């Protein structure tokens, strides 16, 4: 490629420790001692390994793979939450990591308060959030419910609010983890249109879904991760054939 990639993984590896001490407690410690398991026998496993890929600005990258293949690990690494244990992950832009957003709501707070809280947590200033506030509320279709505590919302309403925040408070790179296809049919249509609008803008999206239909619809490039390693990468159409044939 001629231009500098906006996201670039070089030989990336992320290691997890399956430590006996992870959830450790006195009981576990005693068990460990009792069974004479050496503490050094702590297992490790690579959540991702030898991963090489590039994403150009404006690309919509779909990440294919089964559950547990390392898709979420990859998103977290792009977001800077995990540091590479091996290799490099270069990200040349700001990232909004809207991963499983609605789980971040504080139930006792109102929709309005949650919009500001999530906005500030994800690194936006109060001013930026205020500027987007009307857009978020309007898109979520929550109307007066926005002033009610989130605990009174249905799961659909929560998802709608989560999606509206994610779509409005965005950065150069947007990480999307299974938050599409929320709400009723009408809302799904609306969010689909919004996504297509987004794709046409110069924003870069990394899209994770185990629903290959979603990926097929939105992304132009794909990578396929299998057991933490890159199985294939390329244009969406050819990747889809490969993936579905397997």
């Amino acid at each position, binding site marked *: 490629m001629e231009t500098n990639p906006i996201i670039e993984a070089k030989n990336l590896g992320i290691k*997890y420790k399956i430590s006996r001490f992870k959830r450790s407690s006195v009981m576990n410690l005693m068990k460990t001692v009792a069974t004479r398991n050496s503490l050094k026998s702590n297992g490790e496993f690579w959540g991702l390994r030898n991963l090489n890929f590039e994403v150009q600005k404006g690309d919509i990258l779909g990440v294919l793979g089964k559950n547990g293949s390392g898709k979420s690990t990859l998103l977290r690494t792009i977001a*800077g939450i*995990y540091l590479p244990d091996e290799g490099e992950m270069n990200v040349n832009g700001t990232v909004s990591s809207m991963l499983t957003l609605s*789980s971040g709501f504080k139930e*006792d707070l109102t929709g309005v308060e949650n919009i500001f809280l999530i906005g*500030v947590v994800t690194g936006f*200033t109060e001013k930026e959030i205020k500027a987007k506030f009307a857009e978020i509320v309007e898109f979520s279709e929550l109307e007066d419910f926005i002033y009610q505590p989130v605990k009174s919302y249905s799961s659909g309403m929560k998802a709608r609010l989560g999606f509206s925040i994610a779509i409005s408070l965005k950065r150069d790179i947007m990480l999307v983890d299974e938050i599409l296809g929320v709400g009723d049919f009408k809302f799904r249509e609306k969010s689909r249109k919004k996504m297509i609008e987004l794709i046409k803008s110069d924003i870069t999206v990394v899209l994770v879904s185990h629903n290959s239909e979603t990926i097929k619809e939105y992304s132009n490039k794909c990578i396929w991760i299998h057991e933490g390693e890159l199985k294939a990468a390329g244009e969406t159409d050819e990747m889809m054939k490969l993936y579905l044939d397997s």
Partner: protein
Amino acid sequence: MKSLINQIKGVLSRIDLAKYLMQTDLKVRYKNKALGFLWAVLDPFFMMLIYIILVSFVFKKGDAQYPVLLFSALLSYRWFVFSTGNNVAVLVKNSKLLQTVKFPFSILVMNEVNIGLFNYLLGLIVLFPMLFLFNATFSLNLLWLPVIIVVQYIFTIGFGLLLSVAGLYFRDLQNIMLFLMRIVLYLSPALYDIALIPAKFQHIYLCLNPFASLFDTYKNILVRGLPPNGYFLVFVGFAIVFLFLGTYYFTKKEHNFAKDV
């Protein structure tokens, strides 16, 4: 030193987040309650009442100023217990957040200390009228109060940073700390006067137990009208050591939190 500067820089760069976390935490804590923020004042008041009834009426101990002496020490310990008790579990409690967004996680630790401080300051609203009522000696030494509060703040942050990491890798610590903090209270001169400790042990007692000098100092400046004595430097020393150890250890482990939580 480097990690301390980096942590402070990190927190300052996201000071609006610290403000928001505190606001929302206070809202959640006191909203939906008929008496709302009044609870922040009533709570220490009732706590004091219980100890006064217990010591003055049941055990028939303590002198005329006992209630305010007790309260001036207990109020600060309440702050420490609240913040530390929450900080042991703070990383586990916020696991979702840690795995979703990157930000200086020490803000979470600081937040618990801030809320404890907020409650402490509201507790002072109960304490000051009581100081009048019990004929406390007012003097310019009262001006030491903000200084003592700042040192306790640093102490609690440093200790909280250490414990939050320890609590993440050793979950039993939550339960252990509950007991430890109760034992420390009984080992420290809050419920009793420091004069009760035999004279020959006093020096070593004041040097080893940071709360001994802390409580004595609070009692001195608030009730007795005396300045802090040299032993307060012991507490200052503990605060600085914990701050350095805490930031060093926290910075070293910080990038593993999302994986290990």
